[in-house]
């Protein structure tokens, strides 16, 4: 159980993972995820972000180290118990073309259904609410094949919410979405963390969205946790430049205190660019 609100709901200690026996791909990584917080994991391709996410939610078993969920070792949970606390949205979930939207969301109730033949009124209410939250209710009866990428993504998010998780883990939920949907997705995640008290972990490539919406950011590079903390202190140019191999500036807009990361290549800054 959580003793105080500040105790992490997910606590990873010394996590290590490798795809080959003699090579450690990730770790050791220590990480605390708290309720009510939106936690971003950023880093270049191949840094181990997705692997870390899967280790945290028990889809992969670490070679060394451990993950504790609510103070209990993750291995001591049954698969169903775990599924009632953690839900997951992979980068490209498969959309069964002939299944209708509502049925896909209902699939999220799996850990609660047991041997009951039909969904209970409570199940249906949860499904309905999840669809309302994600703005998918209006096409509840449409087949998945008729949806756009952004719509399908929201349907899968609704299914993850229907699982009533304490921890929601998302792997690049905004990849392939247009700008408006990217912002909306992060706004929704922000709301889930603040209003619903869920811990949300999101793997993302968008540093600006992470900076604006997230409470905490973990920067991974070559499987190591190089920085972790609030975005203002974590996402600083000197720290990011060696990780990404590009030049960063913070640019502010007139009359606001919001700032954006602007990217240029390493040479441009030193005046050695072609133009």
């Amino acid at each position: 159980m959580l003793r105080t609100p500040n105790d992490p709901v997910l606590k990873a200690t010394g996590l290590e993972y490798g795809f080959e026996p003699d090579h450690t791909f990730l770790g050791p990584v220590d990480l605390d995820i708290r309720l009510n917080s939106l936690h971003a994991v950023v880093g270049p391709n191949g840094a181990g972000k997705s692997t870390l996410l899967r280790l945290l939610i028990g889809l992969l078993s670490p070679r060394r180290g451990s993950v504790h969920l609510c103070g209990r070792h993750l291995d001591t949970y049954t698969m169903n118990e775990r599924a009632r606390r953690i839900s997951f949205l992979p980068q490209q979930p498969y959309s069964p073309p002939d299944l209708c939207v509502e049925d896909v969301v209902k699939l999220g109730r799996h850990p609660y259904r047991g041997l009951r033949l039909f969904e209970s009124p409570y199940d249906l209410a949860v499904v309905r609410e999840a669809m309302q939250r994600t703005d998918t209710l209006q096409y509840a009866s449409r087949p998945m094949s008729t949806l756009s990428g952004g719509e399908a993504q929201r349907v899968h998010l609704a299914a993850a919410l229907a699982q009533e998780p304490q921890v929601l883990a998302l792997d690049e939920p905004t990849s392939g979405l247009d700008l408006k949907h990217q912002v909306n997705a992060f706004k929704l995640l922000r709301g889930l963390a603040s209003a619903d008290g869920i811990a949300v972990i999101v793997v993302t490539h968008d540093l600006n969205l992470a900076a604006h919406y997230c409470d905490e950011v973990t920067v991974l590079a070559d499987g190591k946790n190089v920085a972790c903390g609030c975005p203002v202190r974590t996402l600083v140019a000197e720290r990011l430049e060696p990780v990404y191999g590009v030049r960063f500036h913070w640019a502010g807009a007139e009359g606001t205190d919001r700032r954006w990361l602007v990217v240029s290549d390493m040479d441009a800054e030193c005046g050695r660019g072609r133009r």
Partner: protein
Amino acid sequence: MEHSRGKWRTVSLALFLGILLLLLVASPGIGTHEVGVGVVDAWRSLLADHPDPALHGIAWQLRFPRSLKALVAGATLALSGAVFQTLCRNQLATPYTLGVASGASLGALLAFKLHWVTSYFGLSSVSLASFMGALLVLALILILARSSARITGNSLLLAGVTIGFFCSGMMMFVTSLADVTETHLTVRWLMGSLDTFGGVEIKTLLPFVVPAWAIQLLMARSLNQFSVGSELAMSRGVNVLRTEILGILASSLAVAAVVSLCGPIGFVGLIIPHLCRLLEHSATPMDVPGPTLRTLEQPRPLRVLDNRQNHVNTSRRIVTFSGTTNNIEGPAELVGGTSNKLMLFARAWSSHEQCIGGSVKVK
């Protein structure tokens, strides 16, 4: 919307179960009118103290057991097809594309060719050989597909199709070694038939088929989760590896049992799950209770109808084939024609009467 869909499920389920029951009740009386055994005669002979032995025999020892056989075979093939399609997340997956049925056929054919006729615990050698063939293929495709850490649908299919080709080749080879009579029998059997072959009785296979149904139906909900990908299924508490192994094993054994019972019939396992999904409008191949039950019941009308022709076909020594074709058998022939045994179909279509029954019996 929610309400009307639930209602449609109930109504369509009741409708199809009703049709099925009707066909089953009528089936002892359906053959050709020339035999003179109608539905009423058939049921009267069952209830009478001293029935006419010929009439009773035709209705209750020839026709009705075939209907039951059709029912068991259709249900098993359709359910197994649905399981394979769901696990591989591929609409082309069937017991045939996975090679399991080909393995079972090869086993049965070898038993037949080598005159291995015995029975153990009531189970005939043909069935045993089918089981062995299916299990051998299963082991092979699992080994081939497990080259990476996880079994994926596509690698399973690739391995299955490869082994399936090999088994088909071996079957051709075995057939080529046989003499004329044997070849004729073999070809007849390879066309798929509800006739008795190799002394396999349906009741000896029920201990394999019925538990397989139970397993398939019990895992229906877990299988549903595969429709969004195995990783997502795992995150929702599905034991992915166990479901895969158990589903494939149960379905393979059930298919092997059916193959030993009535030869290779590919059509049912492929298309019935799709038909059910069309009817369902919105469903995965498996969902309890609607589609799954329908998967179970759907093949029966088809097969029972089919049985009518088949009966005429096999008992042509008693009657001459009347050549009646009704509306339902028409489309069935069409679908049969488009399927993998196009050649056999064409041959059956063009040649003598005894094969007309075979062409209707969709492959």
